[in-house]
């Protein structure tokens, strides 16, 4: 069996700022990390592999600049068996659709895949679109907002997972191959690889593929292959300074009721 986990390297914080003069995001001094949602998805895949009797190969797949191999190294230490980095100047400027096309073609290159795992979204763009768009590109079903895997029956070729909905949670059964977009609980504690696992990871294979490895035309990728175009980025308008009271409860409450009166709420 083969599982592929789609991962992304993201800035290690959402506290990024826009340079007011240039309108671009300040990236200097902002460290990178493996997107936490993807780390959860990888953990789900690794846990599932450990439960299964048959042999499973887990491949961590990412598209990004050459430095994104850091995120892949972490995946290998956590439990991926192999990593693939899609990196090419041609891939730059991709929107979610062009990203999905690139990842989708890489999946085809990998060959038979039984399950695709992805984080529900990435902490930088928060679009939650790449997973479902990859599923659509591959023509496989998707389950989004997956909280946990309840049961996996490789012989019957189906999986039961618990997923979040607008109303609460449901148990959903689906045929494989399937793409699962996984949503971690805040209480999720990622596996921290030990020294041995980190050493072992260094011996695991990482491949680098460019657009020539994936086929198609240059125009299919990156900005040329994108349907959406960012016109401008900027900081949100600042919110005015609020009132803050650090006093006895009775005093604080009096001032609050005054404030609510002034605002016409009470």
């Amino acid at each position, binding site marked *: 069996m083969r599982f592929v986990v789609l991962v992304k390297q993201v800035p290690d914080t*959402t*506290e990024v700022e826009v340079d007011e003069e240039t309108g671009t995001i300040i990236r200097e001094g902002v460290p990178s990390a493996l997107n936490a949602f993807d780390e959860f998805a990888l953990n789900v895949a690794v846990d599932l592999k450990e439960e299964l009797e048959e042999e499973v190969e887990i491949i961590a797949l990412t598209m990004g600049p050459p430095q994104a191999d850091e995120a892949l190294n972490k995946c290998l230490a956590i439990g991926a068996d192999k990593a693939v980095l899609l990196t090419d100047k041609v891939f730059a400027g991709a929107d979610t659709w062009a990203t999905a096309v690139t990842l989708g073609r890489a999946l085809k290159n990998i060959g038979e895949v039984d399950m695709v795992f992805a984080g529900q979204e990435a902490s930088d763009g928060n679009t939650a679109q790449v997973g479902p768009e990859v599923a659509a590109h591959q023509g496989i079903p*998707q389950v989004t907002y997956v909280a946990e895997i309840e049961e996996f029956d490789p012989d019957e070729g189906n999986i039961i997972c618990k997923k979040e909905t607008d109303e609460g*949670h449901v148990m959903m059964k689906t045929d494989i191959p399937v793409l699962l977009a996984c949503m971690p609980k805040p209480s999720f504690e990622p596996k921290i690889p030990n020294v041995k696992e980190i050493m072992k990871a260094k011996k695991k294979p990482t491949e680098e593929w460019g657009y020539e490895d994936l086929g198609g035309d240059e125009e299919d990728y990156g900005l040329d292959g994108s349907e959406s*175009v*960012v016109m401008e980025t900027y900081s949100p308008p600042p919110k005015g300074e609020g009132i803050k*009271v650090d006093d006895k409860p009775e005093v604080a409450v009096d001032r609050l*009721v005054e404030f609510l009166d002034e605002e016409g709420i009470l």
Partner: protein
Amino acid sequence: MIEIDVDICTGCEKCVEVCPVDALYMEDGIAVLKEEECISCGACVSACPVDAIEPVIEAQEASELSKYEGVWVFAEQHDGTLKETGPQLLGKGRELADELDEELCAVVIGNDIEDTAEELFAYGAEKVYMVEGPVFEEYSTEAYTAALARLISKYEPNVFLYGATHLGRDLAPSVAGRLGLGLTADCTGLSIEEVEGRKVLQQTRPAFGGNVMADIVCPNSRPQMATVRPHVMSPIEPDFERDGEIIEEGVEVHEDMISKEVLEILEPERAGEIPVEEADIVVTGGRGVGDCREDFGLLEELADLLDGTVGCSRPIVEEDIMPKAKQVGQSGKTISPNLYIVCGVSGAIQHKVGIRDSDHIVAINNDPDAPIFEMADFGIVGDVEEVVPALIKKLKNSEE
């Protein structure tokens, strides 16, 4: 791609400095573009202090694009009850349709939903496209994607909006992926702008948890699709006298096409209470309130006094203290009440994102450095179990 107005350019070189791919250089004191290098990131457009640089959208088959007409809204329903996002999107859709001088239409999918479809006229829809059948009774990505792909291919709308609910964020990218369309996620602003002589949908969305805003357009694919954050747009005053045309579209979906099946619904909706996303006043509690249902009694008392409803943060749902339907925040309900009182919630970014459109935010927390205070209009540093009873007492006194 961009265009540089040589008459305006002052040669300050700001654009050259910010270009991430070195596509700009100076020649005779004027910025020049190496077209083959440009990735149209817009960095230079923002950086130019004299607005000498304009983005250029390459018009691909512009004649093809203009045949797409109409602003369409996906109206979610559950068991025949219209979800709020439909009317909200129709509210914004009305403005966009007027601006474009095009029709405003809604799409509703389900089983036995004619009354639901009729309701959409009250909120401004001129036409309602309805897809009905037992196979659409429960939401499934496959069946709903098939229905929308058919409608879009047949009727060619110009704009297509979805609510950024769990369902919308499952369905919209599936449709976009199927048809190879652009899609902008979780928008908080929509407007019609003229770019290169064409009216396009400008989609504004936050990224990095709201620390960065971006304006996005989908210049070359139609419909221009976006998911829109719930409660950011307002519905128009409903007029139930208003009528329109229902177009029933037969879409056949075979059972075998649906590879998924819901085995069990774990937490059904609770009846009788005002849902957090509909309440005018919401009182929310987090870890700082306590660790059992009883501890939330205090907040319920306060909410009752104010004719509001109680919500909670994600950890409270995780610990099974409150049901999922009460969860406020990015992974729960996005809300925009008139008054949001938030007690004992530190203010993780996911929570803040879900409440940022509230009109007034009051935060009570015993940690003076809690991030929630950054967005509060009124903050009280103190223990919830002391401040809330004092507030209840004060409100009761002033009532008498």
